[in-house]
């Protein structure tokens, strides 16, 4: 058992995109119950340091597997398909057009203080994202189509960011 072992091995689960989140939660808690610094507050220096490293590692692994986008990126990384998020931003023009329309709609609703419209955009996007994760599950778990999955993940990165912006706009309207 070492830090180089992959996150799925750490939690003792199969490396799949579709996973049982409540099972992951309980495995995470079981591991923290063993390695957390609170378990070693009265131990020697070496054990305390080690416990901090392990607990840090378990937190990072859990955060990566818990969020679907991060989990998908991680699975692609394990399969040798890195996203190259920063160096490779070329996206098909129709997708970019669609993005621009979304953004305009969000900006308009935000500037007009239209809470209702922002909620509507949020829900629409949420549904769109869910459907895309369904597809991603098939590509990764059933078909092993990693190249296509990489493209879908890049799109989802745009959409998640957009969803975040809508949430921020909603939050600033509430304040």
């Amino acid at each position, binding site marked *: 058992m070492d830090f180089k072992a992959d996150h799925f091995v750490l939690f003792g689960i199969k490396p799949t995109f579709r996973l049982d989140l409540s099972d992951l939660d309980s*495995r995470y808690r079981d591991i923290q119950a063993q390695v*957390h610094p609170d378990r070693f507050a009265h131990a020697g220096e070496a054990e305390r340091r080690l416990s901090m490293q392990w607990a840090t590692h378990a937190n990072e692994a859990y955060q990566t597997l818990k969020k679907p986008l991060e989990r998908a990126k991680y699975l692609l990384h394990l399969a040798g398909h890195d996203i190259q998020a920063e160096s490779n931003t070329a996206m098909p023009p129709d997708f970019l057009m669609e993005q621009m329309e979304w953004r305009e709609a969000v900006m308009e609703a935000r500037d007009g203080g239209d809470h209702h419209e922002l909620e509507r955009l949020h829900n629409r996007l949420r549904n769109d994202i869910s459907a895309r994760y369904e597809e991603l599950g098939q590509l990764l778990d059933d078909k092993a189509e990693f190249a296509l999955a990489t493209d879908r993940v890049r799109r989802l990165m745009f959409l998640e960011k957009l969803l975040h912006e809508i949430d921020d706009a909603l939050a600033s309207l509430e*304040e």
Partner: protein
Amino acid sequence: MALFQIAEPGESAAPHEHKLAIGIDLGTTNSLVATVRSGLAVCLNDEQGRPLLPSVVRYHADGSTEVGYDAQKNQAVDPKNTIVSVKRFMGRGTKDIAHIESMPYDFVEATGMVKLKTHAGIKSPVETSAEILKALKARAEAALGGDLVGAVITVPAYFDDAQRQATKDAARLAGLNVLRLLNEPTAAAIAYGLDNAAEGVYAVYDLGGGTFDISILKLTKGVFEVMSTGGDSALGGDDFDHRIYCWVIEQATPQPLSLEDSRRLMMRCREAKEFLTNNPEAPISLRLANGEMIDVKLDVATFASITQTLISKTLQPVKKALRDAGLRPEDVKGVVMVGGATRMPQVQKAVGDFFRQEPLTNLDPDKVVALGAATQANLLAGNKTGKDDWLLLDVIPLSLGLETMGGLVEKVIPRNSTIPTARAQEFTTFKDGQTAMAIHVVQGEREMVADCRSLARFELRGIPPMVAGAARIRVTFQVDADGLLSVTAREQTTGVESSITVKPSYGLSDDEIAGMLKDSMEHAKEDAAARALKESQVEAERMIEATEAALAEDAHLLSAEEIAKIRATIAKLRETAAGDNRRQINIAMDDLGYETQAFAHRRMDQSIKKVLSGRKVDDIKVGEEGEQA
């Protein structure tokens, strides 16, 4: 295997011996100390049977100090030298402190943190807080009759790194071994949750004397998981006093008040605030030194209206914390009220209206934090109590970031990340032949560096000259379980490393602490060298105990040779610790640490493997329980 579990006579630490550990609520207005006795958390009272210690320190000209009720009683006599609400100054510069103009102290701006000029000399808030901690430590030692293995000290969840580090420094100055800095709302949740075997999502609304915290926690079987936290580390009951004070001045328009009168009036305002909890109207009257009389009446409705903005100021962070947790008010199963200021009816009403439910107030809001801290201290000290085996997963309250081009902040660790946590980020040089790089660490949510708290600046030197963009500098942030940050930077291609614990830019250096420690010892006529020796001996004892306990459990992970080596190192340490050479003791401790490194690794691996394999035999566990029944 069993052979190694037999300890030699006199060598075994009694495994069931109860270790003395305390929990301290170091509050803005009042502080408390609690411990677990016969399985029950209790507050330790002073000789007059009072659990609270007012967080007031008076400095006398001869350098002696008075802490608590006596100092509080005399605060109007000697306001310049009687420090109240010192917690508001911890890790803070003059520009961070609200109403600084109406305070009677002589402030001295030092790097990062203010200092106060008293007639006993210039005092750092860390030293003043240490006086309060010393008084509580003495109280605990007298009550428990023995040496303390350590203390859990609570801090507002919303305290940033500077404020946490200052608190830990104060504990060190007071001679306390800090087992953990624990967030106040989390401490309250422990006291509350364990008492009620609660499950579900809870909000802890903690309005203390000078700080406000909101934490959203998920309680599931034995796990307290903080989902999000928020607050205002400069908003509390004091501000309500101040609002009353301003209102009185408006009503009565007296001549400008002297420092003494001003402090006296502030005390009357506080009394009025407390009186209004159970009465419709409070009289506020005071004869000033010049004979003039202030005599006004404040009713509940007026009090509510002049403090309304303060209450809505607390609801902003509540909304934000819920949003961060991805929850709505109706998802919250219970709202726990903590802190004396939550006794105010208008606060309870506003919180009740927001969450659409009656807040929970069945535990004393003054004591609940100290009781939770004591419970946690008991667990951390290694007093296993069987049934109360729980796990606490807390978060960092504010994002950590680095300054990038144009004074912008690049976030490295987002707020509400579960601690301990670490994140590495890579940077590069932007000029040809650049050999040094400045790193500026900040904390906060804003986009501009100027709007965030500066934690540390340091420089990575010795980068080999390369073309711009060729160097790869990896900066690693590590936040430990106390919520404290350390940063290391390394140039990847050559391995040049620079490491700091984030301290220099605001706080006290180790030298300054050593100096303060020496001063306070001189005054207490305590021998600094004797105390340092004693500390090393206690630490050595603790280490021996921990190692022996580990050997008793897991000797099978070691070869006979390794066991012999560890045993010999323990024997050496025990022998050295019996003497009075502190340096030798520390060397012997380092040796034992070195010899047990591999052992520690194997033990950790074993326990993780055990969890994973235990997973597949869930049905067997049920069978075992069945047999016991």
